[in-house]
């Protein structure tokens, strides 16, 4: 069943398209990774879906439906009501996602009672259960703690507890492990894998490895557009877009020979700059005249595989 469907989703700030007409489809329970670098528009995509774009942003789309709601037709109050119940968000920095002057418990109880009509005692019970579910030791003691009294890893667990507590159909996680240490990142990934079974997940990350661990399908964004979309194993084994290829060869991996890394030359095109052709062309080893003249459309090249490139790698 389709949970989320976006057609030609565009987010503009000061007439600059940060997200430039992307299509997204997500089935219930599916996990989609949106991978890109800073300025690729991945975070703005997430904020547009959850309804948290900055005031200067304008969102347009041919269609944008989430769990049967035509999101763009909703008034702000109805829109907010979707948050927490139908979908919820996990931020990179839990300190910005958690109100610093409220205790963990009161945040949980408020979140629960906003969407469920139950008494305070029952809500407290559910809140404690939610903390225990995300592996927080001694939930009763932590219930009255404030966000700043917890470590980064614990705060991220609390964020996840809050995101899960109303059993939303969709969770949007924006770089949920980027600010964490390696061993804590491993814990949180493990937790997300274990606890987010029922909900659909959109994971925003710069790290293909993290996306590969949690997601079945990955969309790679570059300069506001999706340049490649594929099942994770296919994408990693046989990337079709030269940018995806570049991302995979640019990162060091354990290899005793230590071959010289193969970086992508140049730097990402700033969002405020437009090119008549493919935005990746200036950095692309395979670019030809047509790439500089014409923007390639995202097209299906094999079952479940889409790529926006005039000269994609063969994937068969």
């Amino acid at each position: 069943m389709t949970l989320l469907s976006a057609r030609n989703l565009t987010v503009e700030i000061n007439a600059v398209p940060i997200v430039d007409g992307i299509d997204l489809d997500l089935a219930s329970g599916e996990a989609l990774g949106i991978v890109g670098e800073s300025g690729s528009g991945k975070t703005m995509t997430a904020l547009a879906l959850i309804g948290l774009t900055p005031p200067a942003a304008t969102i347009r789309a041919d269609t944008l439906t989430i769990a049967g709601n035509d999101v763009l037709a909703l008034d702000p109050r109805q829109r907010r009501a979707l948050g927490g119940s139908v979908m919820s968000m996990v931020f990179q920095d839990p300190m910005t996602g958690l109100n610093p002057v409220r205790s963990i418990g009161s945040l949980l109880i408020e979140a629960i009672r906003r969407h469920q009509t139950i008494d305070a005692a029952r809500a407290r019970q559910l809140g404690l259960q939610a903390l225990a579910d995300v592996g927080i030791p001694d939930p009763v003691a932590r219930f009255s703690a404030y966000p700043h009294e917890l470590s980064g890893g614990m705060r991220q667990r609390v964020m996840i507890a809050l995101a899960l507590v109303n059993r939303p159909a969709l969770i949007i996680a924006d770089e949920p492990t980027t600010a964490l240490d390696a061993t804590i990142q491993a814990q949180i990934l493990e937790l997300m894998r274990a606890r987010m079974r029922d909900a659909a997940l959109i994971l925003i990350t710069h790290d293909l490895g993290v996306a590969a661990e949690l997601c079945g399908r990955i969309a790679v964004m570059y300069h506001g557009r999706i340049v490649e979309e594929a099942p994770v194993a296919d994408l990693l084994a046989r990337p079709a877009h030269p940018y995806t290829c570049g991302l995979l060869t640019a990162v060091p991996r354990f290899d005793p020979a230590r071959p010289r890394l193969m970086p992508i030359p140049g730097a990402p095109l700033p969002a405020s700059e437009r090119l008549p052709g493919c935005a990746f062309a200036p950095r692309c080893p395979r670019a030809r005249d047509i790439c500089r003249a014409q923007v390639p459309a995202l097209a299906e090249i094999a079952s479940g595989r889409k790529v926006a490139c005039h000269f994609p790698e063969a994937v068969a």
Partner: protein
Amino acid sequence: MTTARGVLPFRLRLPLRAPWQLMAGGIIVAILVALALFSFFAPPADATRGSLLLRFRAPGTPGLLLGSDQLGRSLGSRALSGLPWSIGIASVATGIALLLGTTLGVLGAFYGGRVRAAVGLAVDTVIAFPALVLAVTVIAVIGRGFWPIAITLGLSTWPIAARVARAAALGILARDYVTAAKLLGVGPIAILLTHVLPALLPVLLVMAAFIFADMLILESALSFLGLGPPLSTPSWGNMLADSRQFLTQAPWMMLVPAGCIVVAVVGLNLLGDGLAARTQARMTGMP
């Protein structure tokens, strides 16, 4: 790892439009300064000599746009010729407060230990006295006049500048590029001059506008209390003091100088707000 790139998770060049406060405040302050210079070099004659035939004329009388006082002197001209006094004193006092406050504040931030403790103690001591009470006491002892008043006001206000400068300097000193300079072997004085002061400048500018407004009010208050310029000098405070006796008879005598003070103070505060907003926009607008 996170990257420090401002509040929003993306980079955008915002057009650096001058905020309206900056425009409005700048225009008001520029007009005041121009008028002050004009009246300093060409003082209006009817500010000190009036015609007793034209006493207590209401504003709008031909030739007396803002009315006249009990001696038939033009209030508009008097307000104009009070400007050099008020602006002059406020400028000198602000200059002293900024120079002293910034120097001590930055030194306190840069050298910890005893220097910081000494500066802190001096700041707290001076701040414990209300500026007006301090000024009244000092002027009562050493006498009135342009320089005594200006210096006294400056000396009673520097701790505010010192506190702001110290807080800002502490923030700047914690930046990576200052640490980098230290590790490159750059000496303390060079660090202060090349990294700290330039970064402090926008903060100092904003602060100068607010302190200047404060000084204008304090100067008027001193004049009102009879501790300002000689009574024959038409400063705004003196005009206010004069108006007391004729409040019911000629309320405009009070409204004209009071209005001048309000316009000047509002203009300076707008300028300060505008400068602050522009600095803010630069900080967040630039990656």
